């Protein structure tokens, strides 16, 4: 167009990009790469990424408030994992608002019950495994801790048991579908669909301001963690990134898509951390404390059952709450409380020593062998999943 000005050109380009970023979904493999990079950045910036520790902090606050715990926990806004959790939630909420997908989503009573029970099981399992699907599996594996691999096996076993339950439930319990009330899409008299992106934009600015605020009070590390979490939440929501699928789908539909993505993401994460650790940029034993093998394996199995019942793991619980799912709010409550209580129990009886100890892969296989073995292991997992997709050998339904 002859009348095209710089402004109209920029405006058109911005509109196209907005659609590409917030209206079209991102491919899962891209999210897998982003999440591995963000996890490595969090590791370089501070300490390895985890989620359950933040949930526990919130649970500890509840226990402290009702007088069960006498020791005052860290303030949630000064606790690193709690901060990255806030970030993930805020990122997902912003993403949902920007793509006009935020909505309070109710569920039938049985689903709420499954949400709470799933959360309790996950909190319990995460306490024994020394972390959730992120801290105990994804990050543990990325940090080259043997516990990550043990928890992965446990998660697979748990997913299989959980799926068996869901099949039983489907045959034996009937859930009435929720009658949806058609609500007028207005918010304080304005159209909710138009307002959403502006609230999302405001939230983004608020997170940036929060970063500079933390920086100004000499807590730049925490501000950075909040921001990294925010990016993870955005990536996870836009791609609907779900660790649960990597463990559930091979048994349920046979699909191997998410297995490929998680395996690829872990290879990037693991190799990145190998560089960082081998070169002593960070202390090699950092993030290697998972109770191998009993704690990680058993905790992983219980966690696996829980994540199937809840329909979300530690990370997807956060981003789904950002999208407005009330069922996952129940999961969060169950998770936080049960994780804090189980952790208290484990510490009181000194159980963690009996469950195993942190084993660093290079200490077992040497650095030279760890790297090829790590890659071969995840490539094998992928091929097994692809073979299962074609033959449906492991599909139980």
């Amino acid at each position, binding site marked *: 167009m002859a009348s095209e000005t710089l402004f109209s050109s920029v405006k058109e380009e911005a509109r196209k990009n907005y659609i590409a970023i917030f209206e079209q979904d991102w491919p899962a493999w891209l999210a897998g790469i982003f999440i591995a990079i963000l996890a490595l950045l969090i590791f370089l910036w501070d300490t390895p990424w985890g989620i359950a520790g933040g949930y526990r902090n919130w649970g500890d606050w509840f226990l402290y408030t009702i007088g069960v715990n006498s020791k005052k926990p860290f303030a949630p806004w000064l606790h690193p994992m709690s901060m990255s959790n806030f970030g993930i939630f805020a990122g997902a909420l912003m993403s949902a608002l920007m793509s006009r997908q935020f909505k309070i989503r109710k*569920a039938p009573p049985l689903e709420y019950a499954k949400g709470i029970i799933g959360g309790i099981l996950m909190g319990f399992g995460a306490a024994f495994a020394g972390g959730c699907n992120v801290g105990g599996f994804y990050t543990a594996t990325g940090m080259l801790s043997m516990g990550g691999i043990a928890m992965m096996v446990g998660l697979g076993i748990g997913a299989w048991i959980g799926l068996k339950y869901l099949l039983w439930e*489907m045959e034996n319990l009937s859930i009435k*579908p929720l009658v949806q009330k058609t609500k007028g899409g207005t918010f304080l008299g304005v159209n909710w669909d138009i307002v959403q992106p502006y609230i999302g934009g405001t939230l983004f600015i608020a997170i940036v301001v929060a970063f500079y605020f933390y920086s100004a009070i000499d807590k730049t590390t925490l501000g950075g963690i909040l921001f990294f979490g925010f990016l993870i939440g955005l990536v996870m929501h836009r791609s609907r990134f779900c660790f649960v699928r990597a463990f559930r789908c091979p048994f349920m539909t046979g699909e191997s898509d998410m297995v490929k993505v998680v395996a690829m993401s872990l290879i990037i994460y693991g190799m990145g951390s190998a560089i960082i650790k081998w070169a002593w940029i960070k202390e090699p034993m950092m993030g290697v404390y998972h109770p191998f093998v009993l704690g990680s394996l058993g905790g992983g199995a219980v966690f696996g059952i829980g994540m199937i019942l809840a329909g979300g793991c530690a990370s997807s619980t956060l981003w789904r709450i950002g999208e407005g799912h009330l069922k996952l709010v129940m999961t969060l409550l169950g998770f936080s409380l049960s994780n804090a209580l189980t952790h208290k129990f484990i510490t009181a009886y000194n159980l963690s020593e009996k469950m195993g100890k942190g084993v660093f892969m290079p200490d077992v296989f040497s650095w030279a062998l760890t790297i090829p073995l790590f890659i071969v292991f995840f490539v094998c997992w992928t091929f097994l999943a692809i073979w299962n997709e074609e033959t449906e050998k492991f599909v139980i339904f």
Partner: protein
Amino acid sequence: MDLTTIEATQVLDTCGLSCPMPLLKTKKTLKAMKAGEILEILGNDPGSKYDLPDWGNKGGNEFLGMTDVDGGVTRYFIKKG
């Protein structure tokens, strides 16, 4: 295909359920149907918009399409193969 005039053999309502229940129920219902029959699924979980089209085209079935109706509910159509 015009989705508004489609005649479904069976309707499955998954409103209020979230991942993975809609897909699980779809798979179960479809198993009991005959080849050529059409299943209509109602759902309001955003995840279904990705799951059902992907899965619906596998195993010889055909995903016919989806259309949004009131209250955030989406109608999905799968033809059993």
